[in-house]
């Protein structure tokens, strides 16, 4: 069994969902996403048993392009993250009534398909195709099923699309250039290239544009807050939980090993930008009145730290980045789901109109609280492991990076606690707040279980990703 089975499940699952009709769509989507998750686990088992799940077929002979996948521990980890989160996200949306649900869930699965594809591709061309494909569904999800004023939404979503596409096209140019050098776009053959520093600089820069916009790294983040705010929660979760990780993953898989010289020479610039993002995102988050926007800026801060870890080029940094990517994926989905739960009941995202929810629903408050403290990296949660490794790797580069990047610990607590206080605490809200349903709480339970389990016992993930990351570090250090 090779990894294409997951892609097939998701792609045909998307079609099946569409043809299942509006009523059945979400059930079918859930089954499909669950199936893809099970298949991912099967791939994981196969990987642990030492059996390769790669595939390679010739696709286009002229120019030389393959349908190829490389399923190492890193790819499997990301694949598991994607399929698990897709399942959770689909499940979390069960209480929502979408118009044209069949289209909606088909797009969700299609997006998942594209993201899995991005993570497993071993041919740059295939990778790029998946990378771009992932953009289309989220564009429609945000546009058609989004909330807020239509004109404002159009402005924000189109900006998001064109902006990210613009970045990606420069990446495509870089790949084309690499192809002209290597005669193939298979990742292993690209790794063999010996590029001059000048060439690497431009390639690194082109990649950076694509990834910095996608991740996003300060100051390329301007699409983020509005898009998150205006997308439906499912879209926001997909974007923040998985799609951001595509950028970070690509930094690790493509950007650093392909242009190691440039990475080493200009490392500090990117570290500084990433760390500015950490502080800047946190500070901007302090004064947000919109819950989803606040979470968006917190996301900016968190991914800034992850990116900084990746740009340290050290094993600790990369490992911390991957761990934190996974942890952040779950946390951010949990946070946005909390926002969604509130929005379902109070019909607002404005923090000023919330408050006093804890009295009305203590169960929800507790679960929200756990996810929140996980997001501020409390030890014992998964996020702490990632944050610890990341900050340690930053320290090894320069103590000031660790200190300034570490302010996220403080500022994160500031805005998160403030948010929690204004949203949940205080006198009871005048508006009624229906108790959290079993279905909703199950989502939280799963997320919390993941966060706590891996917070205490991250070894399985660690063992999974470390060999792959060691290989990548070796590639980075090959010059």
């Amino acid at each position, binding site marked *: 069994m090779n990894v294409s089975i997951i892609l097939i499940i998701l792609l045909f699952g998307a079609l099946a969902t569409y043809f299942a009709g509006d009523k059945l769509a979400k059930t079918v989507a859930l089954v499909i996403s669950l199936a893809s998750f099970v298949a991912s686990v099967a791939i994981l088992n196969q990987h642990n048993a030492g059996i390769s799940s790669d595939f390679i077929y010739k696709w286009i002979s002229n120019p030389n392009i393959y349908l190829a996948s490389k399923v190492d521990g890193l790819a499997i980890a990301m694949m598991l993250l994607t399929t698990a989160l897709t399942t959770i996200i689909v499940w979390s949306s069960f209480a929502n009534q979408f118009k044209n649900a069949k289209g909606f869930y088909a797009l969700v699965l299609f997006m998942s398909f594209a993201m899995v594809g991005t993570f497993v591709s071993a041919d740059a061309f295939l990778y790029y195709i998946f990378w771009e494909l992932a953009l289309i569904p989220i564009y429609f999800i945000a546009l058609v099923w989004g909330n807020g004023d239509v004109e404002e939404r159009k402005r924000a979503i189109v900006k998001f699309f064109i902006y990210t596409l613009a970045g990606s096209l420069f990446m495509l140019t870089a790949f084309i250039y690499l192809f002209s050098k290597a005669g193939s776009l298979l990742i292993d053959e690209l790794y063999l290239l010996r590029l001059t520093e000048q060439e690497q600089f431009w390639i690194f820069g082109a990649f950076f544009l694509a990834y910095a916009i996608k991740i996003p790294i300060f100051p390329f983040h301007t699409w983020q*807050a509005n898009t998150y705010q205006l997308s439906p929660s499912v879209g926001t979760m997909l974007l923040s939980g998985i799609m951001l990780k595509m950028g970070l993953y690509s930094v690790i898989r493509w950007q650093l090993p392909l242009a190691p010289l440039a990475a080493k020479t200009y490392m500090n610039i990117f570290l500084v930008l990433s760390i500015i993002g950490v502080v800047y995102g946190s500070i901007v988050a302090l004064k947000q009145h919109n819950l989803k926007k606040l979470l968006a800026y917190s996301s900016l801060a968190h991914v800034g730290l992850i990116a900084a870890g990746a740009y340290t080029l050290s094993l*600790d940094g990369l490992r911390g980045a991957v761990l934190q990517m996974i942890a952040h994926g779950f946390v951010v989905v949990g946070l946005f789901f909390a926002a969604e739960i509130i929005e379902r009941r109070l019909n607002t995202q404005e923090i000023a109109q919330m408050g006093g929810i804890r009295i009305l629903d203590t169960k929800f408050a507790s679960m929200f609280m756990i996810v929140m403290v996980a997001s501020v990296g409390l030890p014992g949660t998964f996020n702490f492991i990632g944050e610890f490794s990341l900050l340690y790797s930053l320290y090894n580069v320069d103590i000031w990076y660790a200190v300034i990047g570490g302010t996220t610990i403080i500022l994160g607590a500031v805005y998160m606690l403030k948010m929690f206080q204004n949203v949940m*605490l205080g006198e009871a809200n005048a508006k009624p707040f229906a108790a959290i349903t079993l279905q909703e709480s199950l989502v939280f339970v799963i997320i919390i279980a993941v966060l706590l389990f891996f917070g205490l016992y991250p070894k399985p993930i660690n063992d999974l990703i470390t060999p792959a990351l060691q290989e990548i570090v070796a590639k980075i250090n090959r010059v």
Partner: protein
Amino acid sequence: MEKNIALVLVLAPFFGFLFNVFFGKKAGKTLVGLVGTASVLVSFLSTLFFFSALNANPSQPVVVDLFQWISLEKFNVNFSFLLDQLSVLWLLFVTGIGTLIHLYSISYMHDDENMNKFFAYLNLFVFFMIMLVMGSNLVILFIGWEGVGLCSYLLIGFWYKNQDYNDAAKKAFIMNRIGDLGLLVGLFIVAYVFGSLDYKVISEGAYNTQLVSNNSGLIALAALCLFIGATGKSAQIPLYTWLPDAMAGPTPVSALIHAATMVTAGIFMVTRMHFLFDLAPQILDLIAIVGAATAVLAASIGLVQNDIKKVLAYSTVSQLGLMFLALGLGAYEIAVFHVITHAFFKACLFLGSGSVIHALHGEQDMRNMGGLRKVMPITFWTMMISTLAISGIFPLSGFWSKDEILLTAFHSNIPLWIVGSIASIMTAFYMFRLMYLTFFGEFRGTEEQKHHLHESPALITFPLIVLAILAAVGGLISLPGNSWLNHYLAPLFRKAHEAHHLDATAYALMAVATVGALIGIGIAYSKYIKKQEVPVQDAEMKGFASVLYHKYYVDEAYDVVVVTPLKKLSHFFRNYFEVAFSETVFAFGKIANAIGTQGKVLQNGSVGFYLLAFVIGMASILVYLFLV
């Protein structure tokens, strides 16, 4: 066997927590209290097991290695516990006092609708505190460190309907996190220098002269960072302002977390890492100075506070300052000694004040109390003993521990001794001021309150009595000249710390200290018993008293220096930077659109113009290709 008991020790409170969270509502209040208390008691009993084992075999600390936790390139962090003299000692009073306070809470919190939550949080706190103390490396300590911070946050904001309480909780968490960052950076430096975060490895590294001399700068920096962490948790200058605010929480919380256990974590950590601090004498000096300054600053604020718990809070800050003074002087075991005695009498005082507040249905302002001595005899007498102890009256526990600190200070640095002594005199004054205002004179509250005055039930008074006894006799564990504590802790320290001999200087100093305490008491007596003064209303406060009452305006200063600029910055970023970035991206689109709009003018519909453009285009191509 040992491993299992250690796990029981750690997990018992956690199970208590789980029980209270999931079944607390259904189980009923009695069962909640029972399970909560019993789980801590189990831990206490387990600790006793280790204590006896350790006494039998002092050189063999128990190490419980569970599993590999965080892996880094150069080292791994294991999930493992270390039960040596220091941790067992700490565990003893954490779980011991914890049990008493749980017991106390059964009655104290009985009327609260969320009693199960309260016990859950309290159990969780004990769990994290045990982790903090028992961890065999700095990262496990850090789990506990942040965990107790979280519980502190939850418990301070326990009455979450009141946003002021929530503010206080938030403030506590955030100020702690500032310290935590310091601690974290300290961890990184230690890991970088010693290649591990395990206490054992670090301590071995610390005695490796080669390693140390190569990294002396970094080690000092590490010590500084760790100390910054300690200032957060243990409420020292400059991060002490959260502790007085933290009194928003229920009183048992103040007793357990904000007096006896959590706030001593900083001292624990410094003692734990003493080998590192020993290598950085300049940082030790700094610690001593900060400690002394905190002691006197907090004491002076305590002089004029009217909220009974605020007085105790500032007293705690001040006493913690004294402990840091001891640490800074390198007298770790003396600091530990004071931690223990302080835990006894301060817990007793807080619980006593809780008893008073309970009797007055939530009244905390001492101006509205008075004359409670007759109505609440047990509360009065237990508190009196503790007050005498904290004031350093012979032969109660506080006398011995405080005296040791001042003695050490006198031997190494006279100005520090003077500062410490002033703080002690002030302590005696404000504690007796508290006692006089609360228990003597006439009752100044409403008739309604007066009608309901009563002594607290046995569940409340029993812990008071136990703690009062401990506060009275606690000094026995480290008498000058024959210190059991020093002997017990000796395996921890490579260079032996001998207890001070009782020479003439020592006796003289004891006398001076006692006289000082008596002077403080005397002033309080003359002011509040003889003249029957009652502190004036807030608005009438004048001069320096007003400055003191407003805590030197430190909160306001922090507001101006840190909080407001941060808010302004956030505002500025949001309203200008964000807009600028956004508009920059839009600008590309706008430019293209603007060109498009202008271009429409060219597309004017006139065939003549089109042909002209055609000809010009053709001509320029031909000219370029054939004439240039």
